[in-house]
């Protein structure tokens, strides 16, 4: 039971952080029809900015300033990079963001070096918030959960209940008509792109000190976020939430339960004493295949239900 609760809590936490990334990515996708390959790179920038700012000033200023910086960079990238490429089609846009992801990783190494940064959890949140079923839950993790849930609620409220949200939704689905009604659609796109990047930046600030702040972090998380938005359904915020939590919990469950697949393989006539690759196969456990699981889900989803769980259109 402890294991179950522990992996549920941590999976939820990881999932909510994935959601911070996925929500921005899925918004940007429904807006421009292009998958932003560099989205996780903005997450990385958020973590690095937060590290530098928090060593200079403190964690709370970092939590505010770093996402704003990331958002501004994102908006500039949209205006001067992505928009000119738009006329060459979706493949060119995808390639642009791919190149950008590569470039951001190199620039991060140029500025901060290749080794991991010592980005610490803020001292004032380092105590045990509560204990339950014999396990301690750190205050910082509760704080992470609160921040990400808060952002989800705020985002949902803005998009569905405010005038700004209405204009964004209109620009997403009927951009020409919205433009004809006198709204500056290009600016809406730029701001939405920047805002999506800023959300990734927030995830970087609160997640960088838990997941580790290093140049490879974007490459590790980026593909997983793709998996999340495909499974949730491209453009669907609710779908992104469900899929994020699902992937997060799945990852922790697979790792902490460590189920063996030996019974399954013995059905196929493969046992651990056959040597070589057969032994590897027979001794596979769920912890082993945890890193493969999201991609397996992605491939299966794209084959059998390309619109995802809650999507309204195919990829």
């Amino acid at each position, binding site marked *: 039971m402890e294991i179950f609760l522990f992996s549920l809590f941590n999976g939820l936490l990881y999932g909510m952080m994935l959601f911070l990334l996925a929500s921005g990515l899925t918004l940007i996708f429904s807006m421009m029809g292009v*998958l932003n390959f560099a989205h996780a790179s903005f997450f990385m920038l958020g973590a690095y900015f937060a590290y530098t700012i928090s060593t200079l000033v403190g964690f709370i200023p970092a939590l505010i300033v770093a996402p704003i910086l990331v958002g501004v960079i994102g908006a500039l990238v949209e205006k001067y*990079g992505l928009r000119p490429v738009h006329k060459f089609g979706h493949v060119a846009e995808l390639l642009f963001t791919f190149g950008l992801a590569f470039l951001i990783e190199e620039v991060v190494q140029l500025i901060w070096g290749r080794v991991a940064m010592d980005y610490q959890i803020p001292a004032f949140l380092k105590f045990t918030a509560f204990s339950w079923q014999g396990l301690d839950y750190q205050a910082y993790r509760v704080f992470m959960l609160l921040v990400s849930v808060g952002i989800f609620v705020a985002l949902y409220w803005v998009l569905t209940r405010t005038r700004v949200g209405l204009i964004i939704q209109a620009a997403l689905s009927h951009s020409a008509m919205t433009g004809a009604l006198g709204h500056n659609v290009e600016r809406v796109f730029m701001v939405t792109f920047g805002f999506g990047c800023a959300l990734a930046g927030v995830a970087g600030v609160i997640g960088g000190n838990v997941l580790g702040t290093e140049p490879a972090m974007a490459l590790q998380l980026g593909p997983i976020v793709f998996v999340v938005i495909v499974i949730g359904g491209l453009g669907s915020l609710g779908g992104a939430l469900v899929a994020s939590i699902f992937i997060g919990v799945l990852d922790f469950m697979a790792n902490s339960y460590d189920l063996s697949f030996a019974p399954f393989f013995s059905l196929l006539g493969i046992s651990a004493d056959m040597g070589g690759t057969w032994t590897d196969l027979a001794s596979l456990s769920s912890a082993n295949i945890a890193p493969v699981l999201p991609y397996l889900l992605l491939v299966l989803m794209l*084959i059998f239900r390309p619109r995802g769980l809650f999507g309204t259109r195919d990829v």
Partner: protein
Amino acid sequence: MMGNAQKVVPWLVLALLLVFLPVWFNSSFALTILSRIGIMIIFAIAYNMLLGQGGMLSFGHAVYFGMSGYFTVHFIGGMQDAATPYFPISLLPILGGLIGLILGILIGYVSTRRAGTTFAMISLGFGEMFTALTLVLVAFFNGEEGIQADRWVGPEPLGITFGPDIQVYYLIAIWTFIAVAAMFILTKTPFGRVSNAVRDNPERAEFVGYNTQRVRWLAFALSSFFAGLAGALYAVNYEHIGFETVSAATSGLVLFMVYIGGVRNFLGPIIGAVLITVLDSVLSDFSEAWFLYLGVIFIITVMFAPEGLAGLIFMHEPIWKAKPALLRALFVPYLMALGATLVACVGLIGLFELFYHVSQDLVVPDEMNLFGIVTDTASVLPWIVYAVIAGVGLFLCREAYPRTKMVWDDVISETRAALVQ
């Protein structure tokens, strides 16, 4: 007759180059690069069968390259232990190609149902899946270390042992010639044309009666075959294969090569493979920032020259055909634009190198070798000098580019006039 001769000449040139290059560049370092170039040319053209010919952007084509390499190394190792039947080393690329083909048929079946973003995502998914598997199935992949085997095995026909690198080079050269020729002929077949049609307008191709999914599947399988062939040559050449060969790094590198070289021309991937492999081998020793430059070159290509280097070269073809004398007018503007770019590059690269040097994690001496000059990074002077050079270069670029563009527009309108006459 004339037409035939024109068709034969490029192949003769390719064959002669493949034969005589190691005579001119005979150091062992140069030979390593030449072998690598041959392998990458095959891989790049195979990749372009997808991206350029078929309009499918893959982020995971290294899977077929790397997996074939793993199988090849296992096979050679098996021959050493007499666990697998003997098979001539020189024909192993066929076996590697078949591995690629089988994987391509299986994975292609599920991934080529649609082109565009869906295809790109599935390819990414499979790429990540295989990369993750290399760390799980240790007996087969041996994790981050990879596996190795000695290619010196079996009988030695004509004294060819594949011990010396030069023999391996010629093996690669022969296979490069065969593979390039085969892939070129493929572009001229009805299949190649239909593949282009499905790329440009799948709906119309479907209406004409072609099964677009079938066409993409076939293109994917054939491309995987040649990627596998290249992977087997890689394994024979290095006698070692590691997880990076199936990973996103290799997939990304081949994408960079093909796109920077140019996707719309058969020569594009060759240009890209040669250029990037040479730069990669030579520059990565001198510069830590090489990958940064590669990324910048790639983004500039995407933004300003989507047809790549080959596109830039071949946009002069109509002028050449209509009135070659017009090209003379472009000479001076090109020289000026090139000079300005060079100055700007020297300045910017200088600054980046200085920056990289001081931002290194290890403790390093202040002095560094920059463009052959011993430079003291602690003093302000080199920073100012390179900043000034960069500034001047960028200013010159701003002056030179619009002028070049004006001359180019004039030349193009004159070409049109010449064609009308």
